[in-house]
């Protein structure tokens, strides 16, 4: 079959690879219908996550059709249209039973790597390097889905492939940020990043009753999407100073909940950005935490900051003093998608949650390398490149 492989730093290629097989009884094989490029893939493509191996198949946000099931699969049949959570979780360990699915103890077959790096291993993730299990990704014609009863969800008939696709990652990740960030009716919420996850976090905050939601970014077309499709306010950080603007919006308090949806390659203006770039390129820090810093400084006293962006290891100039002295609650996680996906699919079916606009560039798998280039460089207003294998 054909698959989009990482072949080196900033090098991608579509190659012939072997088809996946059922290896455990709880596996299913899914024929991929659509697979989206995600902002967090850019960290892999750019070589910021050092446990990639040339030949690894990328992709972790996808929808497909089940074509084969292992003998232990109970909830799915061949022919089911399913959206699959990006994180691979067993559903049986303590963390899964407590709905902290991305922390699954049993979904990562290479636990020693992250156990050593982070003190404990989270669950596995499709197409996200050998540190996260080395699982082959979804930018391919077929994909193996372990623990299929836990991670694959039937898509309601009246929800299109393009809408349901984002129930795999962007929508549950965004929802989790608003939910576990503690958004409640009457809150003012600020979201850093107007990509797919940021937009979904903003929409989630609105659906959870926030009174005012503002999304911060620099790309005009993304900010327009926020205004037109999400219904939130926007702030362009190239033309406005974010902290004073947020103070003004909130009567001098700062937002109640600040959600960071940017990750380790944050952009910004001013000398802090240059400083972070130099340190990251010299490998004196692995990640650029510009948006996290700003979210912490912006948040009101006693407020909550939720980090949704992917970070790999170490950051510099982290404002811990602000966290402590302002009494902030700081939380973060990879998505606990299994907890939210059925509810999100229902909201998609009723039209409360619309996502099709994120798929700005739908193309064949063969065009994958070009799709990632467009996505990385935000060419032609690309918010997400989506591949049809």
């Amino acid at each position: 079959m054909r698959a989009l492989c990482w072949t080196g730093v900033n090098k991608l290629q579509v190659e012939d690879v072997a088809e996946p097989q059922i290896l455990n009884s709880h596996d299913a094989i899914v024929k991929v219908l659509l697979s989206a490029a995600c902002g967090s893939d850019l960290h892999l493509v750019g070589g910021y996550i050092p446990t990639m191996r040339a030949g690894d198949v990328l992709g972790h946000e996808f929808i497909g059709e089940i074509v084969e099931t292992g003998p232990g699969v109970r909830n799915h049949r061949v022919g089911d249209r399913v959206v699959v959570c990006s994180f691979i979780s067993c559903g049986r360990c303590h963390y899964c039973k407590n709905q902290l699915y991305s922390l699954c103890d049993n979904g990562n077959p290479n636990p020693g790597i992250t156990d050593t790096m982070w003190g404990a291993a989270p669950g596995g993730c499709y197409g996200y390097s050998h540190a996260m299990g080395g699982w082959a990704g979804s930018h391919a014609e077929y994909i193996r889905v372990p623990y299929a009863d836990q991670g694959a969800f039937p898509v309601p008939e009246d929800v299109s492939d393009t809408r349901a696709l984002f129930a795999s990652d962007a929508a549950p990740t965004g929802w989790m940020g608003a939910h576990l960030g503690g958004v409640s009716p009457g809150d003012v919420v600020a979201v850093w990043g107007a990509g797919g996850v940021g937009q979904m976090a903003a929409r989630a905050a609105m659906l959870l009753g926030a009174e005012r939601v503002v999304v911060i970014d620099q790309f005009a077309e993304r900010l327009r999407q926020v205004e037109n499709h999400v219904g939130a306010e926007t702030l362009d950080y190239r033309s406005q100073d974010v902290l004073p603007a947020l103070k003004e919006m909130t009567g001098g308090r700062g937002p109640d909940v600040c959600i960071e949806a940017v990750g380790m390659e944050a952009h910004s203006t001013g000398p802090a950005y240059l400083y972070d770039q130099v340190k990251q390129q010299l490998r004196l820090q692995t990640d650029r935490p510009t948006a996290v810093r700003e979210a912490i400084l912006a948040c009101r006293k006693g407020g909550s900051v939720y980090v949704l962006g992917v970070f790999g290891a170490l950051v510099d100039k982290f404002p811990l003093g602000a966290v402590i002295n302002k009494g902030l609650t700081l939380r973060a996680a990879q998505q606990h998608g299994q907890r939210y996906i059925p509810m999100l699919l229902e909201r998609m079916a009723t039209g409360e949650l619309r996502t099709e606009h994120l798929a700005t560039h739908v193309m064949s798998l063969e065009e994958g390398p070009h799709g990632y280039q467009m996505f990385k460089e935000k060419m032609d207003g690309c918010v997400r490149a989506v591949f049809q294998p």
Partner: protein
Amino acid sequence: MCVAAGSDEQNAVMAPVNVRKIGTGVRRLAEEVRLRLGSTKVKRQAQRWLAVTVEGDPARITTEGELPVPLARLGSKVEVEIRPGPGDWGTEILARPAVGSSTAAADRDVRGQIRSALRQTKQLLEVGEVLIAEPRPEGTRPATVPGKLVDRAVRSADEKGVL
């Protein structure tokens, strides 16, 4: 790997030197010295239990007094302790190399085997089977230095960590 030194004539009679073997030998010797002459902290570390927590109560862990297969396979090389976890944390399974088993290097190998056995035991008890990762679809894997480092990390990933 051969290390060439001296004239061609000398090389002709010198046996090839295996640098990797020497490296391993030196490392093992250093471990042995570190353990024997090291601080109490180092010695304690070598005797520390490795542990996992599994769902369910302790009675479920052993069948008619028999340990789960991955741990039972290690036989007398290991000591095993099973105890209830606090609150709703199920059962804690602890294992370590049997006292006075052997050298520091052998101990290190056994500790790796224990990590792997504990992880497999947990999967068997919670999910019913051990997750199989390979073969997986993959493109061309060129023999690069970073690639070899990743391959090496992956090969030993089940036996490593702070578990």
